[in-house]
């Protein structure tokens, strides 16, 4: 076994990762503190900014890395069956509301620990179907595809060869949550990371994770622009639906299969 021929030849791209990480950190840290003042406030430009950041820091490096080993990564893009697509869509919709609960608990915990961060500004209001569909493309579809390829595709495969057991899932989820630079959203993001890693592990298809991610981001955009929180009753209902769907998704089917 020749150890040096590890298929994912990331060594050639080490510097790319480092540059990406530095840019990502600078952009992430400055987004709220420094750069925001130069951006037109509450304007559509924010969406363009999000999309460009996702594309150049995460999406394009991920695509380039995957193209280097086309045959290796091709199986990750197999088409999932309709039943699991349906379940994942339901999970995404219900979880995006249930995540509010996680965030509320998380923020309460932070505050009781004496950590107070100002709440981030709401996303800009959208007027008309054109702006809305552009926002979905820029802030839901582009980030979802880029992040899934990078985190659940490349990073998870890179780490699971190097970590024993299932540690890779937790590390990927942690990095995923960290790189969103959201103190308030950390808990929910970490949870989403775990869920998506498990999903890709179980169903071996990035498409399911991408579908979940797109739907989740879209609903966050809709909720933010509506600027109204769903009722507590609805949130708990969604949590119930989400947990039930997760059970169906991850249940261990059957015992012995005679063929």
């Amino acid at each position: 076994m020749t150890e040096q021929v590890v298929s994912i030849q990331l060594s050639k791209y080490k510097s790319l990762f480092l540059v990406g990480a530095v840019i990502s950190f600078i952009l992430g840290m400055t987004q709220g503190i420094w750069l925001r003042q130069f951006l037109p406030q509450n304007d559509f430009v924010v969406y363009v900014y999000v999309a460009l950041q996702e594309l150049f820091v995460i999406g394009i490096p991920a695509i380039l890395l995957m193209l280097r080993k086309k045959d290796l990564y091709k199986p990750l893009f197999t088409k999932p069956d309709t039943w699991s697509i349906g379940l994942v869509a339901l999970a995404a919709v219900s979880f995006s509301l249930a995540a509010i609960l996680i965030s509320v608990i998380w923020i309460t915990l932070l505050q009781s620990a004496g950590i107070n961060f100002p709440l981030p500004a709401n996303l800009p209001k959208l007027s008309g179907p054109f702006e809305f569909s552009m926002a979905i493309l820029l802030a839901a579809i582009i980030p979802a595809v880029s992040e899934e390829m990078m985190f659940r595709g490349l990073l998870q495969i890179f780490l699971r060869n190097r970590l024993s057991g299932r540690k890779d899932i937790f590390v990927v989820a942690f990095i995923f949550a960290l790189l969103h630079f959201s103190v308030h959203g950390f808990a929910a993001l970490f949870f989403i990371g775990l869920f998506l890693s498990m999903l890709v592990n179980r169903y071996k298809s990035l498409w399911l994770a991408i579908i979940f991610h797109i739907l989740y981001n879209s609903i966050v955009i809709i909720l933010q622009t509506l600027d109204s929180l769903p009722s507590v009753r609805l949130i708990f209902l969604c949590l119930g639906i989400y947990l039930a769907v997760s059970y169906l998704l991850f249940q261990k089917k059957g015992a012995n299969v005679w063929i």
Partner: protein
Amino acid sequence: MKIEFCSLSSGSGGNATYISAGNTRILIDAGLSGKTVTAALNSIGVLPESLNAILVTHEHIDHVKGVGILSRKYHIPVYANENTWNRMSKSVGEVPLGMHRIFETDNDFYIDDLSVMPIAIQHDSAEPVAFRVFAGGRSVAVATDMGVISKRVIQQLSGVDLLLLESNHDIEMLRQNQRYSESLKRRILGNKGHLSNDSCSLALMSLYETGVKHVLLGHLSEDNNTPELAMHAVSTALSDQGLKTGSDIFLEMTWRDRTSGFYTIE
């Protein structure tokens, strides 16, 4: 449809063979640690999670060591006959529910694009099998760990396009080996032991008649054989019968500690 074939490792230290056709990828045995199998698969550009099945020939540790961990970590279904399942449950640890697949040795079965024929062989385990895998009119086979090779097995392997055949030991070297006990020698030489270089050559002569032309020698003993010796013994025996290696029949080697060549059968 083309079949791809690669022996990741072959020998008493661990056996694993990769076969793929169309969108289906399988391993026959995973007798190395999960980590080593993953590294070997990586070296030939295959993600372990993209495997559709692990087929188990028999329950000895050099064939099942990594089966449990690979199945658990990457959700890969494991195929074995019932007797083998019963015996290997301890050594492979827990295989997740829903990943158990049980075949019957006498019946062919299908894994997506592949059709698999289990072949009953003689070895000192519960219900050992060899596998012949068909796809699009072509076929490859893995036949190791057998004491004798019967007419029935020859018949079932007839005309296979690529065959990994056991050439375990040199009988003289084994007899003179001081470190092996007499009972162990009897076990290896017996009907339920391993195929010697000489038996391998004999089997190849019969198989050549049926149209087998490409053969990989495998499962070489570390103590009682060397790749050079095995290759020399088999090619000499074949040339005595008027078969020229390199033109009539093609022989190549698989290795104990590294992957073999990557073969594509079109």
